């Protein structure tokens, strides 16, 4: 009998993993096929489209380059200083990852916008206001997002340098400059290309930042151009062609990233305190503190502005906002369930079968996928059968689930591998297979990464503004979409209130799931 359950479990793993793999192929490549089919025979790209390609590459380069360059001194200062609240600051630097883009944009506008803090100060001293919209606005928003990410990646590099090396350096009388040359520079050389590529990839598929911070045709990304061709020009052929261009960009960047080991920015171990001896004199101390303060303020002021501006307006928010929030919550929870189920099935299949590495690659492929391309493809696939607008929320949920999958897989697969190594044989001799093994051994041991992955997925999905813009009509908007409408209608107060609701919900979702993972996850 046990023999049968073992075999059934293996068969089930194969079927479930195969189904997930098939769905991922449809999502990442099938949609593209539909797009390619549709694009056939349509006229070539216009000049404006090539401008969008150029702009996409330039802004991604600038954003990634600036984020990484600025992250080096900040991470270096954080690595060699100990102070109260250091751990909290490093944790906070993980927050932009789950911060809804529109919330970040609103926060940045409150500081750098037309009537933001800086322009008010400029006017007060009698200088001209500056305009935030355009290339520099897009790059600013991307740096706001990715500077903390880059800092965390580099901090891990610093944490990976053994404490004994710093001790040796101190005993040899290294100056901070010597330490940099001998210990830190080699680490940076190994880490920087990967960090740059990760951020470049993220910025390549930028949609909502370009939508809100871009300035008309001169500052349009390919993703935004797809949306405009789709929604405003009703030119499916051109939208499809642009989708192919975007896919090519992502595929090339993804292939390069495949060759360079991408750093893991989600893990822990960054707040390890290493005793450092190269802390230099008072000048260096002041310099480091200033750097850390600037980094913290750049992150915190926009968030504080959102809270301050939004708080008075939350109570008076119109009913549509709350309805949209409810819809977003459903989408986020649905996406979380789908992501976890798919990730578990795929991770089991990756470990159970030869050729599992291919499944792993497929699960990570969405890192380089473009939600707008997938959305366009799904729209074209559904169109002959039904009205795509009726599936707006479902499609948003499924695409969000697919987009979160790489992160969930990178969290869950290594943990599952560890469980197999430590307790696999014991479970085998006891005849624990299939659902019993999942319930009694795997899920309880996976609780922590599961909670973290669920929190990430829920928060990312809650704040996502992408595919929904292709599908939804006036009715059935999600909260980010509703927020975008309020912003475009210049209803500043309602927008500020809605942004705070969105921020609160996203953070709360993350917190609840992550906390669930942390409780009872002993031993």
């Amino acid at each position: 009998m046990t023999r049968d359950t073992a075999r059934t479990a293996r068969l089930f793993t194969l079927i479930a993993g195969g189904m997930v793999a098939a769905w991922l192929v449809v999502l990442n490549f099938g949609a593209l096929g539909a797009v390619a089919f549709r694009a056939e025979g349509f006229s070539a790209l216009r000049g404006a489209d090539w401008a969008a390609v150029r702009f996409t590459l330039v802004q991604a380069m600038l954003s990634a380059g600036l984020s990484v360059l600025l992250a080096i001194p900040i991470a270096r200062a954080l690595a060699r200083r100990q102070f109260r609240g250091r751990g909290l600051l490093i944790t906070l630097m993980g927050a932009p990852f789950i911060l809804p883009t529109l919330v970040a944009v609103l926060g940045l506008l409150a500081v750098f916008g037309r009537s933001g803090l800086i322009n008010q100060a400029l006017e007060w001293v009698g200088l001209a206001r500056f305009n935030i919209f355009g290339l520099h606005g897009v790059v600013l928003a991307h740096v706001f997002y990715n500077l903390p990410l880059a800092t965390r990646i580099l901090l891990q590099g610093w944490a990976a340098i053994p404490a004994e090396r710093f001790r040796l350096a101190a005993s040899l009388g290294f100056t901070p400059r010597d330490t940099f040359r001998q210990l830190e520079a080699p680490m940076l050389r190994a880490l920087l290309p990967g960090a740059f590529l990760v951020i470049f990839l993220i910025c390549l598929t930028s949609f909502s930042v370009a939508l809100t911070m871009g300035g008309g045709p001169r500052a349009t990304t390919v993703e935004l151009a797809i949306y405009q061709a789709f929604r405003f020009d009703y030119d499916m052929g051109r939208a499809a062609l642009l989708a192919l261009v975007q896919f090519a960009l992502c595929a090339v960047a993804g292939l390069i990233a495949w060759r360079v080991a991408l750093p893991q920015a989600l893990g822990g171990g960054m707040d390890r305190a290493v005793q450092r001896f190269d802390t230099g004199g008072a000048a260096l101390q002041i310099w480091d503190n200033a750097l850390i303060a600037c980094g913290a303020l750049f992150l915190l002021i926009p968030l504080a502005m959102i809270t301050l501006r939004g708080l008075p307006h939350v109570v008076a928010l119109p009913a549509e906002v709350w309805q949209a929030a409810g819809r977003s919550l459903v989408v986020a929870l649905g996406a979380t369930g789908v992501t976890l189920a798919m990730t578990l099935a795929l991770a089991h299949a990756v470990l159970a079968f030869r050729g599992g590495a291919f499944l792993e690659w497929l699960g990570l492929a969405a890192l380089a996928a473009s939600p707008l391309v997938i959305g366009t493809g799904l729209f074209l696939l559904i169109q002959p059968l039904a009205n795509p607008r009726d599936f707006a929320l479902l499609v948003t949920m499924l695409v969000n689930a697919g987009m979160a999958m790489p992160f969930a897989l990178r969290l869950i697969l290594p943990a599952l591998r560890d469980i197999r190594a430590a307790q696999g044989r014991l479970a085998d001799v006891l005849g624990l297979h299939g659902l019993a093994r999942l319930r009694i051994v795997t899920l309880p041991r996976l609780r922590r990464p599961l909670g973290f992955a669920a929190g990430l997925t829920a928060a990312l999905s809650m704040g996502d503004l992408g595919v929904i813009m292709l599908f939804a009509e006036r009715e059935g908007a999600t909260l980010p979409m509703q927020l975008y409408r309020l912003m475009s209608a210049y209803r500043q107060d309602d927008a500020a209130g809605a942004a705070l609701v969105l921020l609160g919900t996203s953070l709360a979702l993350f917190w609840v799931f992550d906390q669930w993972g942390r409780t009872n996850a002993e031993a």
Partner: protein
Amino acid sequence: MLRLESVFIRQDDFSLTMDMSVPAGTRAAVIGPSGAGKSTFLGAIAGFVPVTAGHVIWDGQDMTGQNPSDRPISTLFQDNNLFPHLTAFQNIALGLKPSLRVTATEREQIDQALARVGLSGYGARKPAQLSGGQQSRVALARVLLRAQPLLLLDEPFSALGPALKSEMLTLVSDICAETNATLLMVTHDVGDARAIADKTILVADGHASGPFPTAELLDNPPPALRAYLG
């Protein structure tokens, strides 16, 4: 009877041959130099190490190629014998019902097994709240409850102090007597072998041989064993 029929195992540049019969009820120590393949020897019987050629037969039944859980075997590994997130009671219950859905009678059996290893009232504790010796007892209670005819020990007590270890070996010996189990026990300590194993299997130079009467073997060791014993 356990019969190893011209069994041959190859893993990269390591190989092990074994051809022997171990009568039912035997208590045999498995000794030999580090890296000679003692764990591989047990792993082949338990079903964790695939056999390149030959047959592993228990009571006339060919077990070669069977899943570990389908073999009439209880195994205690060097570590990871308990799930850290389950209580002692649940860890033992897994030996009866992998689904953990136990009936009232089974619940009683588990409590009896806990009492038998001297851990009455410890059922609700998790492994982290138990000492090393108590953890071993929980694992042994599960062995007792499963009552499989073959018991394989891969040095599960090596981290315990001498007094505790001999206590555990006595318990193992008693459990084997109660369940009529055949015992194969890897050890680095010839004292263990003399204490509870009347037979000894020698794994050295890519070959498992025996079982030999323990006292005779240890008093007149062949060259390979002499080099190991020093």
